[in-house]
């Protein structure tokens, strides 16, 4: 075999060897466990702590509110639909209670109840925000947990 081809073959083998060594050391250990990805990625994806705790967690302390809500129009709403994620509130210690928001603006209620052609009348009650009791807060007449109950 001519000398330059011998030399090239040697370099080629060295190169492949280097590549395979690098591949061995750089490939993550759990790669290919379940498919062409890092198997540990699945476990890592589970680690994050949920922000929305679900209404069972709310009911543990606020059972009165829960009973009221479940008996009325807003029964299908989760507490966190309006009050936002509960994790911080639940994990707050007695001395510093972080209260969840209690949104009561007309715009907030309008997110669901503003009149819109895309909302079916039999699916959701709607009002014209520009006409209906202009300037008043919705909560003046409606209790969010029991919309048709008279408010104090």
């Amino acid at each position, binding site marked *: 075999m*001519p000398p*330059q081809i011998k*030399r090239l073959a040697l370099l080629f083998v060295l190169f492949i060897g280097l590549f395979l060594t690098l591949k061995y050391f750089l490939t993550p250990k759990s790669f290919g466990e379940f498919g*062409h990805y890092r198997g540990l990625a699945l476990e890592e994806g589970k680690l994050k702590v949920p922000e929305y705790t679900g209404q069972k967690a709310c009911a543990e302390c606020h059972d009165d509110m829960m009973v009221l809500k479940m008996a009325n129009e807003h029964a299908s709403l989760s507490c966190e639909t309006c009050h936002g994620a509960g994790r911080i509130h639940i994990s707050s210690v007695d001395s510093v209670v972080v209260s969840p928001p209690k949104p009561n603006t007309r715009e907030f209620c309008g997110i669901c109840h503003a009149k819109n052609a895309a909302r079916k009348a039999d699916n959701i009650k709607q009002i014209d925000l520009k006409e209906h009791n202009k300037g008043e807060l919705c909560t003046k007449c409606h209790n969010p947990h029991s919309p048709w109950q008279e408010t104090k």
Partner: protein
Amino acid sequence: MQHLYEMLSKVDGYIYPNEIELNWSILIVLYPFITGLVAGAFILASLERVFKVKVLKPTYTIALLTALSFMMVATLPLISHLAQPQRFYEIMITPHLTSAMAIFGFVYLWYLMVVLLLEIWLDYRRDIVLWSQEKTGVMKRVYKILTLGVTDLSESTVKWDDKLGYFITIIGIPSAFLLHGYVGFIFGSVKANPWWSTVLMPVIFLFSAMVSGIALVMIVFMVVNYIRKQVIDMACLNEIAKYLLIALILDFALEGLDQVHRIYEAEESFNILDILVKGKLTYTLFLFQWFLGMIVPMVTLATLQFVKNRNKLKKRLYMMTGILVLCGIFFMRWNVVVGGQLFSKSFYGFTTFKLHLIGSEGIMMAALWLILPCTILAFLFWLLPPWKRHEV
């Protein structure tokens, strides 16, 4: 984030909210542009070697060195555009075989190491050995290293250089087709994008690559002769121009076929693409890509086929067409890459795109990736001058 709010006000119609910013910008325009230059230049070189077009002899090494210098830069725009550039090695160690992009590392290495470097080394081996004996000081050592320790110049060994080199050129042609056809496949296989998704895409990319590569070698050939104050080999230049014309005609026919097919089939996406082409792409597509980049060069070159002598005029016109063709192909890549992201996949509207001067995706960065291969080419001409080789 401020620029995104500005863009939001310029959105036309409805786009999915995540579509506001273009994901692939000028750097990804450069990527097919540069690899196209490589493939085209190599194909021109192999015309001389494999198909024995003897007139093209003076351009053989020039074309190879041009291909090599652009090849060395080809991955840099890609890597610099990654959001996590330090992880680029993953594409080599865990390539995902269903991904068109994953094979890039291997196709690239194959082409760079096995085809270009080897062919140039075998072609230059005798000269490198002789230079390593003639030169003194640092340069002697540099050439010594380049010989890879093989100084055997016996007749049988040198004959092997030629044999193997010829064999590699033969492998090189399908490899060049693979390299660039494959770049086209990266776009052509995205079924979500009707502007890209066409089987013709790899073929169009291939022929436009040849067009741009031949034009580049033509320009380099003229510039080298100009700088070295040599009388240019007109027969060779005319021949390159002839091949450029043939490649242009083929490319034009393919692109025309693609557009005619699109218009005639007029699928679901046709309306939005129609508005795209007649609106946001008017100048870059009709004026730059087709008129200035294709029709004008084609008419000029075709006319020059019938002109005898008038060498001064011919040289000027060749230079002009070369530059026009390069710009035209650049805009072809632009229209594919950027054009394909301007319309929403909902087909209900358009986002907007503004190129910035500075920044990691700016014009300056792009200019760097175009100046760098030219610098490398100048260096290679100095290190391995094709005009100072030893007569056999």
